[in-house]
């Protein structure tokens, strides 16, 4: 009888030790070795088309801006702004008549405490721009309007090229300052 009790205790002790070891080992291994490789948890709903959002992109066309609707992923404001700029750089459906510089890419977006959104673009945006004063005006106005009309919390937009401020994109208008005043009016 005493021997049975003793055996039973050993079995319970073994099971406890084994269970604790497995649990502890799982947490330790998952924390130290797999944490960095784990995929970020994306709620399934985010990937559904229902969570995409239509945005209005303004493209230069002749002597005015034309609006086209594009679908982008609903995400944080900065991510959305980045997708909007990327859509803007793709150009309008009628790409042939566009003055959007070919090959230009978004390098990064950063929002300052002053509400200015800094849009860092690749050098192609400056280098491949082919246009007159009005085309340059509409290019900057289209970029500005596309961001401001879709992204909350942005007061102004400033273009930088390869992380640097430049004086002008096409030699007619300043890119040194945020765009709000630059694109404010034309008659």
């Amino acid at each position: 009888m005493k021997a049975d009790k003793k055996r039973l205790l050993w079995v319970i002790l073994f099971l406890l030790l084994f269970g604790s070891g497995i649990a502890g080992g799982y947490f330790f291994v998952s924390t130290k070795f797999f944490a960095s490789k784990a995929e970020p948890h994306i709620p399934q709903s985010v990937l559904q088309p229902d969570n995409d959002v239509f945005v209005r992109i303004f493209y230069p066309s002749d002597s005015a801006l034309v609006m086209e609707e594009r679908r982008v992923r609903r995400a944080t404001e900065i991510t959305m702004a980045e997708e909007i700029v990327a859509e803007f750089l793709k150009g309008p459906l009628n790409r042939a008549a566009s003055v959007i510089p070919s090959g230009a890419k978004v390098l990064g977006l950063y929002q300052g405490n002053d509400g200015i959104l800094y849009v860092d673009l690749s050098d192609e945006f400056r280098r491949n721009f082919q246009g007159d004063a009005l085309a340059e005006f509409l290019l900057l106005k289209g970029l500005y309007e596309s961001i401001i009309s879709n992204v909350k919390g942005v007061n102004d937009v400033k273009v930088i090229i390869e992380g640097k401020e430049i004086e002008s994109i096409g030699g007619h208008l300043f890119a040194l300052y945020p765009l709000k005043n630059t694109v404010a009016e034309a008659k």
Partner: protein
Amino acid sequence: MGNYTAMVIRMRAFTAFFIFLLVCAVDARGADVAQPKGGGVSWPTATEVSVRFSRHEGFDRIVFEAPDELFIKSTVVTTTQNQIKIQFPGNLDLKSPGPLDIDTSLKWRTYLIKEKDPFTIKVLKLSSPPRLSIDIMTVQKEEVRKPAVVETIPSEMAAHFTVVIDPGHGGYDLGIISGDLREKDISVSLARDMEAALLKKKRSVFLTRKSDQFLSIDERDMFALQKSPDVFLSLHLSLSDSFVIYTSSGEPANTESSPAELYSLTSRQRKFADKSRALAEDFGKFIKDEFKTEIIMRELSLPLLNAIGAPAVLIEFPRSIVYDKVARARITDALVKGISFYESR
């Protein structure tokens, strides 16, 4: 019975020990997950930060690049009279491609840059990759600028009616390209033709550039300011098949806290707005007479025109024209007539 009690005690001790291990593991996981969310984040290990330094015309740039965007965002940059203090949020493992050509030191988490001359800085925090860019500009007591080009006529004629002609673009800024046509070449050819024609009429003429060189908008404006012209004319090409004449719209619609206002770039043209419109009409009239085509008049807040303290226009010529000698002569004739007519008003 004694063995049984001892066994139970040992079993409890083992169980407590494993529960302790379990709690420690859960804690460690929680700490790792919490770190990237910010808010009291600390960097227990040294963050690898690369630093690059470069000298540019008018400013020096120092760039810190880190793998963690939050690390850059949490960095604070302050200045004193003779140094720039960069306070990083955690320990650094600073990597540099070579010795920096600048007086710096690193103490704990603080990076110091010492400057001999008065300076201003411009700080930019950027992502992709996360980096902190600091432009250091030395403040000059009196900003002295070199004239962009040499004068084209002797100084004794400076008392005459003075025209500054600005051929658009130049250097690596090609302007509009259409086949073999490059805007920077057409504009300088037209400017030279105009210069020759106006010199024959005993006018003082200055060109912002006479060769294929890049000039910034600011340099063109400064050149024009030095010459105090009676008329300023900037020559460009249009994407359209029309002649387009621009005058400044005076100032941006919203001047509230406009950074451009700080540089007084918009104020000079304001009082010449009417004269600029009159000049544009005169050019338009003679171009229309010569080419029998409609002229597009536009007002736009162009920084080049905004800063000119004189009647100023920017003319775009159709890119569809073949700019041979004959076409250039017709354009030049129309523009010179326009200037003469404006002068006689």
